């Protein structure tokens, strides 16, 4: 998940042209002519049937091959002249990508790709580059991906020297300024927090996990903790180790003279010293167990279904037969999946799939369909049926011919622009494929027979090994789904980051922390008073978004809590005990989702009174990390770890708790909340704050006033019992 894809998703949603058909898995390469279908056109000049139309022979077309040059320092250059328009563009692929970043720093390469350009050069900041380039309608951009990183430019011919200057400087003297790394991290964290919003994003992430295995570098995604772990130095080191001339393939296309261009590039790259060769990465692949996996998403009425297996490496000689098979099976308007599941059954708008192939590692086999919640099972069975059929019988001669025609007749579109030819050549060079790979592909496809298709279908598509993933409204289909096999729910809760210490002191001081806490105990009325509290019954008035809500809260220390909230639509109850966690409203009872349940339990553990009662327990630690001014008061900041539940306390000079900060995690990720306490009052000797203000990201989000509180009043045990389920 990255920021770019997120923005793409949102812009697509906004622009919402209702397109007719999604591109189904398309072939990588295809070819020119097979046997045209010549038939005499009618003499009137208008055919009455498409079969009558003569297809003249396509004039021979030899695309211009780029000129390949290798400089002594190892940089490989491809040059393609194209004088149609006064434009020049170029892009460099650099060996090494996210597949080889450390797991504990997942996201490093994406952050590198973002900060490389925005962080500027040692001479000019990224912002200065923006001004300079935009004034020339030019672009220089960088990015990081799985196997490589890249830097590219695009400019008007007249600006080439200016833009090349920037491009080269960025390549050789980047700065990765800290502020831009911080911005990139913020963007990435925001993407993480949004990754559970759309079914498709959830499915794509889980698809990689099921297909390659949780631990595989091909499936890892950045988490808050791994993003936080990336440092400025990591980016500099990455650059130093990878972006050296002998790891770079650089292609330029446009309105220039090749000889002059070569001389220019020698001038700017010639003195660049070779570095270490980037070692090949070996990435472990360990697919998850076959079965049915479900992600519950209650706000959708369509299920996103994927079937996932391992595909092949493109070097595999079966690649050609598989491409033909994919075309027949799931590759377009006339494919079997489209015809049977969309056109005939009306089950889906979006359907397709095939055996995937990667340049240097196995791609994933993915079949996908999006269908209304009610037909989830039917759609799965429909896909399975097509898989069975694919493996049982060879395609008909007609099917085979259609598929091969489609690939071979559209072959020219692989090289109809000089830029495409250049890109192909860069890719072959990067992954060590022969320069005539496209030609080999055409010949390979021509030779594929129906028996080949049947053979590869049985060799590479294994129904028993396919993982079935369903993202959708689980409560409405789980029962039916269970008739197909064991259903494993997937928890997609976004892991909370470790709370970061915001003060300067690197290591905390335990004795100072304990002393501050002891003062806090005194301020509440002393240890005896604090330890004597068994229950609290509180009436709170809560003001949130201009709405006032009455909240009754009963706490039985150490681990039970019941809340009753009076809302316009009725009374809502929320209960958390070690054995249950539910909410009830009217006749409706619902268990809290696991993420919410653990978050509630942590919040109870963090309750300051609860913490103080356990102050002597070895699982509870307090360490002072510094001093901070809060208003007029100088507060001691204490890092509290209450048996795993963490928070920060600001304890004032009089020992009272002024402020508390903690992280809370919801379905969509963690947020840092600050609670400010004031207006302390005595309740039978127990000193307790009565005004609370909750702040999120600098913005006040809620205000609470404690209107009354009873200490150690009897609490009805029935309060914690789960009512019988009347309705689902």
């Amino acid at each position: 998940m990255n920021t770019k894809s997120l923005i793409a998703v949102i812009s697509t949603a906004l622009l919402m042209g209702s397109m007719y058909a999604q591109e189904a898995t398309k072939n990588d390469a295809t070819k020119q002519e097979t046997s045209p279908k010549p038939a005499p056109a009618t003499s009137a000049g208008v055919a009455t049937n498409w079969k009558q139309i003569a297809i003249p022979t396509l004039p021979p077309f030899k695309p211009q091959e780029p000129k390949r040059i290798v400089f002594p320092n190892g940089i490989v250059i491809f040059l393609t002249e194209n004088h149609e328009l006064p434009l020049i563009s170029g892009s460099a692929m650099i060996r090494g990508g996210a597949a080889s970043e450390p797991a504990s720093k997942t996201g490093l390469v994406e952050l590198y790709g973002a900060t490389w350009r925005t962080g500027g050069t040692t001479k000019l900041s990224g912002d200065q580059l923006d001004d300079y380039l935009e004034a020339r309608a030019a672009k220089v951009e960088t990015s990081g991906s799985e196997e490589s990183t890249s830097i590219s430019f695009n400019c008007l011919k007249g600006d080439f020297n200016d833009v090349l200057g920037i491009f080269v400087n960025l390549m050789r003297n980047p700065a990765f300024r800290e502020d831009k790394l911080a911005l990139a991290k913020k963007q990435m964290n925001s993407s993480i927090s949004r990754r559970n919003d759309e079914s498709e994003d959830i499915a794509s992430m889980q698809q990689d996990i099921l297909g390659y295995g949780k631990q595989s570098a091909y499936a890892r995604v950045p988490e808050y903790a791994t993003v936080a772990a990336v440092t400025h130095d990591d980016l500099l080191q990455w650059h130093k180790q990878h972006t050296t001339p002998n790891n770079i393939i650089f292609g330029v296309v446009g309105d220039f003279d090749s000889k002059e261009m070569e001389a220019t590039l020698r001038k700017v790259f010639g003195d660049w010293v070779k570095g270490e060769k980037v070692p090949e990465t070996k990435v472990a692949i360990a697919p998850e167990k076959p079965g049915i996996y479900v992600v519950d998403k209650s706000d959708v009425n369509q299920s996103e279904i994927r079937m996932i297996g391992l595909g092949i490496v493109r070097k595999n000689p079966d690649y050609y037969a598989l491409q033909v098979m994919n075309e027949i099976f799931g590759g377009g308007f006339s494919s079997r999946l489209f015809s049977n599941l969309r056109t005939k059954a009306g089950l889906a708008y979006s359907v397709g799939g095939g055996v995937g192939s990667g340049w240097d590692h196995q791609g994933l086999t993915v079949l996908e369909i999006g269908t209304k919640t009610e037909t989830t099972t039917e759609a799965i069975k429909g896909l399975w049926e097509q898989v069975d059929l694919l493996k049982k019988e060879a395609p008909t001669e007609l099917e085979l011919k259609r598929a091969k025609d489609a690939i071979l007749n559209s072959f020219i579109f692989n090289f109809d622009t000089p830029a495409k030819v250049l890109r192909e050549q860069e890719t072959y060079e990067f992954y060590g494929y022969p320069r005539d790979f496209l030609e080999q592909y055409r010949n390979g496809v021509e030779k594929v027979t129906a028996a080949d298709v049947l053979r590869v279908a049985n060799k590479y598509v294994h129904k028993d090994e396919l993982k079935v993933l369903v993202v959708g409204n689980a409560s409405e289909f789980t029962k039916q789904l269970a008739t197909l096999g064991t259903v494993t729910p997937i928890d997609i809760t976004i892991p909370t980051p470790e709370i970061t210490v915001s003060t300067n002191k690197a290591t905390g001081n335990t004795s100072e922390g304990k002393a501050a806490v002891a003062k806090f105990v005194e301020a509440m009325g002393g240890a005896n008073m604090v330890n004597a509290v068994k229950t609290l019954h509180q009436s709170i008035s809560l003001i949130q978004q201009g709405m006032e809500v009455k909240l009754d809260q009963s706490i039985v220390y150490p681990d039970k809590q019941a809340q009753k909230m009076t809302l316009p639509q009725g009374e809502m109850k929320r209960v958390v005990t070690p054995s249950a966690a539910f909410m009830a409203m009217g006749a409706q009872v619902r268990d809290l989702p696991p993420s919410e349940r653990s978050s509630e339990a942590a919040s109870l553990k963090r309750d300051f009174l609860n913490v103080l009662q356990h102050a002597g327990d070895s699982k509870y630690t307090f360490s002072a990390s510094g001093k901070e001014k809060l208003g007029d008061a100088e507060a001691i900041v204490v890092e509290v770890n209450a048996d795993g539940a963490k928070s920060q306390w600001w304890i004032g000079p009089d020992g009272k708790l002024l402020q508390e900060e903690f992280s809370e995690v919801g379905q969509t990720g963690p947020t840092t909340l600050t609670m400010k306490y004031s207006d302390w009052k005595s309740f039978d000797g127990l000193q307790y704050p009565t005004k609370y203000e909750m702040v999120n990201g600098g913005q006040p989000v809620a205000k609470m006033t404690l209107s009354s509180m009873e200490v150690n009043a009897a609490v009805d045990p029935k309060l914690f019992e789960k009512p019988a389920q009347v309705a689902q």
Partner: protein
Amino acid sequence: MIRLRAYLPLLVLFCALQTGLAQDLASFEKRVQVKTLPNGLTVLLLQRPQAPVFSFFTVVDAGDAQDPMGKTGLAHMMEHMAFKGTNNIGTTDIAAETAALVKVERAYADYDRENNRVVNQDEKKVAELKAAWEKARQDADQYVVKNEFGEIIERNGGVGLNASTGLDSTQYFYSLPANRLELWAYLESERFLHPVMREFYKERDVVMEERRMRTDSSPTGRLVEQFLSAAYDGSPYHRPGIGYMSDLRHFSATDAAEFFKTYYVPSNMAVAVVGDLDADKTFAVIERYFGRIPSGPKPEEYITAQTKQNSERTVLLHDPSQPFYIEGYQRPNFRDKDDPVYSVISSVMSEGRTSRLYRTLVRDKKIAVASAGFSGFPGDKYRNLYAFYAVPSQDHTATEMANAIHEVVERLKSDGVTPDELKMVKTRSKAALLRSLANNQGLAINLAENQLKYGDWRELFRRIEKIDAVTNEDVRRVANEVFVNTNRTVGILETNKSTAKGAQQ
């Protein structure tokens, strides 16, 4: 003195560059040919002999804004039907199939009438009529050769085969090897000469899935539907282009055929072809095939006009997903003389990392992941919205987006744009046009759309001159006229973590 000398060569270079650009554009302009066939169809052609391939773009001047009341989504449905073949593509026996399809329509009308009955509905009768309709469909289906139309295109090397329907227009497009010109002319003209409404009701199911995907199951899809229905009243832009679910369950193949008859007439369409083609031969082939489509009057162009807004409107959606903010201001349609001014505003506000919204919300305040402003939401043929949106960063709220966007907009209203910004916008718009010329499909789209919208494809090139003429005064004037509270509709998606079921309707 020294400064002047240092800048002189740069200045000369800049002028030279501008002339060079103009020449390139002019040479392209000269190569475009246009013809109106006797039946009223406008055909545009541009030779681009880079490789033996070509692309085309057919555009129909009708979209979902033209959907009849109670039949929203019909224009889009018709677009899907244009892939179902003709009287000799996609059928084994057109005579028998036609007879069977007539029966399907009769059976459907009976069922639909009874199904919609409010008082004294006979459930048993509804079930019987439904069964009869389904039986009639099965009968008709036996003559169908599935997806033959798309298959012919694909096996002949067609790529990028697709179509789209907007509120304003409907478009069809793909690319083929150059030796398939006549085949294309046959297929594309037959598509609009002899369409057959086969498999209509299955395709309706497909469209319902499309709606579930784009609108019902997508947080921004849900917000946008509500936002537009609040922003517009008289205008058909208040309705979702994809259609309301109940209308999708109601309209018939007869309705689609009627829509087709009214709007798919040559006088209401344009076709552009770009690629390695011989001009004379191509025009001859196109005239032969497309000339067969019977002429018809340009359809009624009246639609209810959008009333001028006089009060701020707000849509607040509590949703389980992360927050999102959008606001829109009513502006005149695309033919307005100030249209280029809006382009300048969009460029300054939204384009690249120098844009004001990026710099303020993303770079400096660090409260958003992305933010931009754009015209023409959801169309631009009629009075429409100039919209701003922002995607909040983690822990930031939609309200913060609103405040920050307003701050940027107010600055535009008071100070306008700087000379540097204006110069940058003008340079970029020329470069963007130049870059768009390197692509057959992109060119076909631009030529056909400009022809349809302005009655003259040259507007594609004239646009640059109009943008060149925009002044800072223009920007301030338009911004002060349009970006005012009473002309605003706000859409807020706010996270509601306890919402278990938020989406469905």
